[in-house]
């Protein structure tokens, strides 16, 4: 009668014997299950061990999803054996059970959690109180802080997430989801004292996450490690500002403590009771010593000032002198193009100190007989002093340096120049035009 009820499942279980070694293999079992909704995978394992193969090794403890010991991969997906029902899989499906990925296998379904906990520890998973207090320090359940931490404290360290994470396999240094999640809960805990150290530990590793959400999908406690990891990455962005605010607060707190006993100690060696080694004579009276120190500093300062003064005045030298303009002839006024701009290269000798330098400088002369107007433009661009030239086609003065452009009347049309073109003084003598060059 019992045979009619229920369903017979084919169960494949990964077997590995450390005394034999090798790659391991799958053993196949047939198991009749009466009520699948009431049978967990852990029950399946226990029954097979009891009824068919007593050499089968697996791990469990609480049987109520509390301890995290029974995590295995069931039909390709990580889960707690005690939380997964056989009825979670369609009746026609076979069951395949193997140990967690990325963990060294000890025997059959039992894996070595050692490396996992090593990484866990590296993220400083313990709480270190910031202030000692008699009263319990409470974070209110409705506070922003507690709500941000959310379910993350529920982790039972089963390792399902690490097994599901492909990145753990690629980066040896990657702490993996569970350790980062643990660090996250403490990073957000305002009572904890190890913020900086912990953040430093996890930041290096948290960028290995490729946001695949595998961990989130398999977690039996419905924790989103992905969210925890992204939260840490956000903390990293905020870190410079936090660190700055913190050091400011520290500086403010410690400011009055400094600067008290600086002048009070004449000699460090004396203070530490090593007189005689310090090279200063104790018997020398302080008044004389102070006087000597003052004289030394004073005389030094006077000499430095004297030399400095000499240096400064020679450095300034003639630099700031106003220069007398040189009147340079620019040819006959009548030869200049009417109603247009003519560029004239002025040749003259410029005297600076003992240097008599031959100079060729272009000036641009606009002549309009009708309005009886002659304007002489300095070719120096008012931006940074490059040479401006007249572009007859565009009817613009152009500067090749940064693309400045000026209108015929000298005003700025485009580009960086802040002021209109400078004009130069000129006068006309017997039909010759003379220009004042500075």
């Amino acid at each position, binding site marked *: 009668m019992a045979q009619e009820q229920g369903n017979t499942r084919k169960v494949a279980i990964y077997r590995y014997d450390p005394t034999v070694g090798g790659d391991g293999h799958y053993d196949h079992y047939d198991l009749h299950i009466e009520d699948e909704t009431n049978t967990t995978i852990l029950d399946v394992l226990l029954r097979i061990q009891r009824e068919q193969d007593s050499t089968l090794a697996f791990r469990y403890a609480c049987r109520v999803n509390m301890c995290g010991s029974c995590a295995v991969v069931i039909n390709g997906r990580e889960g707690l054996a005690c939380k997964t029902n056989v009825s979670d899989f369609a009746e026609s499906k076979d069951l395949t059970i193997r140990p967690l990925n990325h963990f060294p296998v000890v025997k059959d379904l039992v894996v070595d959690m050692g490396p996992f906990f090593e990484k866990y520890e590296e993220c400083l998973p313990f709480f270190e109180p910031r202030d000692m207090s008699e009263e319990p320090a409470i974070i209110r359940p409705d506070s922003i802080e507690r709500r941000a931490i959310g379910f993350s404290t529920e982790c039972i360290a089963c390792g399902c997430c690490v097994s599901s994470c492909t990145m753990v396999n690629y980066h040896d240094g990657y702490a993996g989801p569970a350790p980062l999640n643990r660090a996250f809960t403490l990073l957000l805990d305002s009572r904890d004292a190890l913020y900086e150290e912990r953040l430093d530990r996890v930041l290096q590793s948290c*960028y290995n996450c490729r946001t695949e959400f595998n961990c989130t999908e398999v977690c039996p406690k419905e924790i989103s490690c992905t969210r925890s990891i992204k939260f840490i990455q956000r903390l990293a962005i905020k870190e*410079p500002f936090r660190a700055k605010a913190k050091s400011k607060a520290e500086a403010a707190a410690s400011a009055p403590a400094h600067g008290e006993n600086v002048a009070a100690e004449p000699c460090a060696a004396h203070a530490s009771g090593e007189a005689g080694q310090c090279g200063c004579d104790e018997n020398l009276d302080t008044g004389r010593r102070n006087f000597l120190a003052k004289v030394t500093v004073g005389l030094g300062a006077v000499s430095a000032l004297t030399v400095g003064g000499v240096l400064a005045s020679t450095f300034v030298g*003639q630099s*700031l002198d106003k220069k007398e303009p040189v009147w340079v002839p620019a040819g006959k006024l009548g030869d200049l193009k009417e109603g247009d701009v003519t560029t004239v290269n002025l040749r003259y000798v410029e005297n600076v100190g003992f240097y008599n*330098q031959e100079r060729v400088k272009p000036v641009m002369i606009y002549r309009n007989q009708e309005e009886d107007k002659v304007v002489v433009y300095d070719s120096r661009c008012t931006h*940074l002093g490059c040479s401006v030239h007249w572009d007859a086609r565009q009817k613009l003065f152009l500067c090749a*340096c940064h693309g400045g452009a000026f209108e015929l009347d000298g005003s700025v049309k485009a*580009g960086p120049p802040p002021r209109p073109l400078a004009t130069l003084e000129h006068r006309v003598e017997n039909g010759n035009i003379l220009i004042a060059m500075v």
Partner: protein
Amino acid sequence: MTDFQKVLLQRIGWDVHLKPFLYKKLPTNLGWSVTLGSLCVMLFVLLAVTGMFLAMYYSPSPDKAYQSIEYIMNDVPMGDILRGIHHWGAGAMVLAVCLHLYAVFFNGSFKAPRELTWIVGVFLLFATLGLGFTGYLLPWDQKAYWATVVATAIPGDIPVVGEGITSLILGGQVSGFTITRFYAIHMLVLPTVMIVLIAAHIYLVRLHGVSDHKPKAKGELDAAANHATTTKLYRFYPEHCGRSTLVFIAVFGAIIYLSIFADIPKEGIVGTVDESYLPRPEWYFMWIFQLLTFFSGSTEVIGSLGIPTLCAVVLLGLPFIEKSKHVGMAKRPLATAVGVSSAVVIVYLTITAFAAARDYGGEILLPERNLTETENAGLQIYVKQDCAYCHQTSGEGGRRVGPDMARLNPKGRTKEYLAAYVKDPQAQSSFSIMPKYPMKQDELDALAEFMLALDFRDNAGRLIEKREVLEQGKAKESVSLVTGH
């Protein structure tokens, strides 16, 4: 060891000072980026030595400076190589100093307790740039002159004292006194400053140790101490020196190669009047130069003074701006992002600056088919009026002041519209900044027709040199003269 050697070693303080200095153990996990610091020192020595020998021929006066450089280049045996090493070495040093700065920034090695080391380092950067700047005035050529004029005009934007500062730097205006002044600064002032700063920098590096890129927690340190024998040794000498020398030799090889095979760009002597001359500074200042073009009129000071000053302040204040204790790139996403962006901006500005220094409109993009007679006439006008100076065609040539010519067709412009537009742009669109081109009607029509021929929706087009177009134009003219058309 003989007695003499023993006494000598004792007299120079070998055991107490020199030996510990030389064999100092450094963190074992340092990458190659730490060699950049030593590279800078070695390049500085190279430049100092070559500079001394250049000074044996160089004459700092306006009527002799240019000639003395010519003499070094042409008559002094191997003088061109000597100057080459100094010239290319200077570029290499600026590059090395900047890379060193970036490496230290990205590693976060500037953080407490190394704030002062960093600040001294930033002053070393300023001194290096100052050496570069004062150095290239000395050949007294066009580049020297204009770069000096432009750079020294920058403080002129400071209200009241600005002009005075410019005069002080130049010693009045650009004259013989400017050369002697720059010569003194380049040869005596800045090298002294450099030596003092380098000594301070090395002292500080030694005092606080080379920063460990992967700091260990206290417990881990104790554990490591117990395993000290298993970790491999990385000492200042010979491991670090050996590595640095290797890097230096590679760089030095490149410098020698350039000195022998590449020409130092030669320009006319100061005072040459040449309208087409494009004043450009040395490549490492090009990005600042390009920055200046982005600001106009009243905002101009932002580009010339504001941003460079801000950069300097941020650089100097960095250890006080970024206070977190984290080091390395991964742990400082914000700092890493800022650093990478700044590098990208500098590289981008440099590239665009060089692109902008090209001769605009040197090449014209034409459709693949043969042009008709009118279109050809239009092409002649297009080239003679230098339209390509302001307009690109399908992204080729031009300053991009005006719209791209290839977009006229897709926009559905007509010939009449274009002809009228060229004649008087403001009449068509009051916001246009294009100058008027009052040409004859048939010229305008031909130009408009040519512009409409610039349609690259179906073909890639071909590039033709502007010179070639002009020659074709001349040939046509002479033909029509002969045949009397």
